[in-house]
């Protein structure tokens, strides 16, 4: 068995994640394909959203897949970085929004 948790070649195994649970796997891929294909949003816009989510979620496979997808669709490096900043800003905002809980408790407890 490999000594590494994350390996580049593991990305190639993504299509096999339905192993041991074929029905759910098929349903997932139908959903995944439908969600990431062009609809009201273009394939390009969806690739940028996926890249931002991938970085926020720290998924090395998805970052690899969607960076390549963005490159293949001619998305600029500056556009990719802008999308990642949206993700970063959302994470920062989400963190700071939770300070509300801290502030509420502090105000409740302090004399």
């Amino acid at each position, binding site marked *: 068995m490999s000594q590494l948790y994350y390996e580049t070649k593991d990305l190639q195994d993504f299509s096999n994640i339905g192993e041991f649970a074929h029905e759910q796997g098929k349903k997932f891929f139908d959903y995944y394909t439908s969600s990431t294909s062009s609809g009201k949003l273009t394939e390009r816009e969806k690739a940028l959203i996926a890249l931002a989510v991938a970085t926020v979620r720290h998924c090395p496979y998805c970052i690899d897949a969607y960076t*390549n997808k963005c*490159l*293949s669709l001619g998305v*600029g490096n500056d556009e990719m970085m802008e999308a990642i900043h949206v993700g970063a800003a959302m994470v920062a905002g989400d963190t700071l929004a939770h300070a509300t809980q801290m502030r509420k408790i502090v105000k409740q407890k302090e004399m």
Partner: protein
Amino acid sequence: MDFSQSFADQLKACSEYPLYAQAVETLQTNITRRCNLSCRHCHVEASPARTEEMSRQDMEACLRAAAHPEIKTLDITGGAPETHPRLVWFLREAALMKKRVLVRSNAAILLEKQYQHFLDIYAESGAEVVVSLPNLNHDRTDRMRGPDVFGKIIVALGELNSRGYGKKGSGLVLDLVHNPVGAYLPGSQEVLEREYRNRLRRDFGIEFNRLYCLINFPVGRYLDFLRGSGNLEEYFRLLKESFNSAAVGSVMCRTTLSVAPDGRLFDCDFNQVLDLSLSGQTPVHIRDFDYAKLSRRQIVVRGHCYSCTAGAGSSCQGVLQK
């Protein structure tokens, strides 16, 4: 891994080995290796320092061959075809055949004083013009083709538009070519064409007819890039993984014959660069053109052929499956 054997095995698996030509519909003539640019993806490694060019005798042989009724298209490429001293004559003779004639131009050369007249000559001859614009991003295109080339291409495209190229009803066809600027495959041709059309129109007022997405071949300077950047193995793996048996039926070599600057014949531009001569008892020089033999020749395949069968397939006319 032996990718040549692997490709042959893939063809065997879909009952397409040996691979045979079905016709010669396009005669692709590589008339010179000389070019004003030295692009990093150029598989023929064209540059200003190259001197190889097709002789008048061999160009005449190309015209005789192209006159065959089954040949529909004369594709003129290089290097930069404009640098060939007999291109004007060649174009005028080709135009007399009343067939589809297309010239692959880097466009930047059309701004150079000694080559500016080709803007009008192309329009007069009615030749289709195919321009390589690898990316809409200025920096990416310049990294691939050289400093300020993006800007020059844009100006040249505007000049071609002003002569009617790419404009509805003019009959003058202007097609663009997209290549990945790195070790990845092109995305959907349909999506990229829409993006090119919208942005070129919005930012520069430029119109064109079609966008062709081409996969870069691991040959020539692009191979050097893959090796130097440590991407070679991964790129071949990507090409192999993306093998699409449905693309095999329409690969370019089955209907195209490639002529080198020295008049020798090859299955494609890439076999030409790799000096992979035609197989069997077929004529090997344009002066010995024999349609019957060449139109059913056996194609010489190697590992680089994976580039034509990856994803939606790739050819000099873009993807194979729309």
